[in-house]
């Protein structure tokens, strides 16, 4: 299935776009999304373990299952304030 991932900051800069569609297996988890994102944007691989994800605007653990309707966002380490 295809999911869309919102990208911010260094992830957006690395991809050159502010969201990206990636192919993941049915019943894919956040961990699968991370792998597929890094495969699609290899420049992010050194950052892979630092990337958190949000599903429907809430932080989501690696085991959370996503669907094509999920609002998925890649959250690199935050630096607000």
């Amino acid at each position: 299935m295809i999911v869309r991932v919102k990208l911010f900051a260094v992830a957006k800069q690395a991809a050159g776009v502010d969201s990206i569609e990636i192919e993941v297996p049915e019943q894919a988890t956040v961990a699968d999304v991370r792998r597929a994102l890094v495969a699609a944007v290899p420049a992010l691989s050194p950052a892979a373990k630092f990337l958190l994800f949000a599903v429907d605007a809430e932080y989501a653990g690696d085991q959370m299952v996503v669907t094509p309707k999920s609002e998925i966002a890649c959250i690199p380490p935050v630096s607000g304030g």
Partner: protein
Amino acid sequence: MSRLTREPIDTQELLRRVTVPAAGAVVLFLGTVRELTAGRRTVALDYEGYPEMAERKLDELDAEARRRWPLCEVALVHRLGHLELAEASVAVAVSSPHRAAAFEAGRWLIDTLKETVPVWKQEHWADGTTEWVHPGLNGDVNADCGLRNAEPGAGGPLP
């Protein structure tokens, strides 16, 4: 009250909002654009956020602070967009009957905001380079990714 804004933060409005007769103490914290960081000179910052999630997180911080301390009012604002030196990027305003709670809650709010709210800053260094700031990740990954010293607006190396 919590919100994101692209306009300068109106500190008077925040102070008016939290200054109530039940309070005896008001603490306002402002995070401002600092010129020097580890010896490097900044000329400006850009802030980007994930608005839907950032506002939800700010609301959660407000609610959690009220659970932890006897607060009268809480106001949290984060600015997004382009900021010049000495402009405020974030404001935390709290009021409480007594000052201990106001100081403790204000400190906890800014500390926790900086750890959890999906907002990012991009340094515009005086040498003309820009850099997204990602604690734990800068100095290694940005460099590894070839993203350090990127020109403003330029994408990093694409696959």
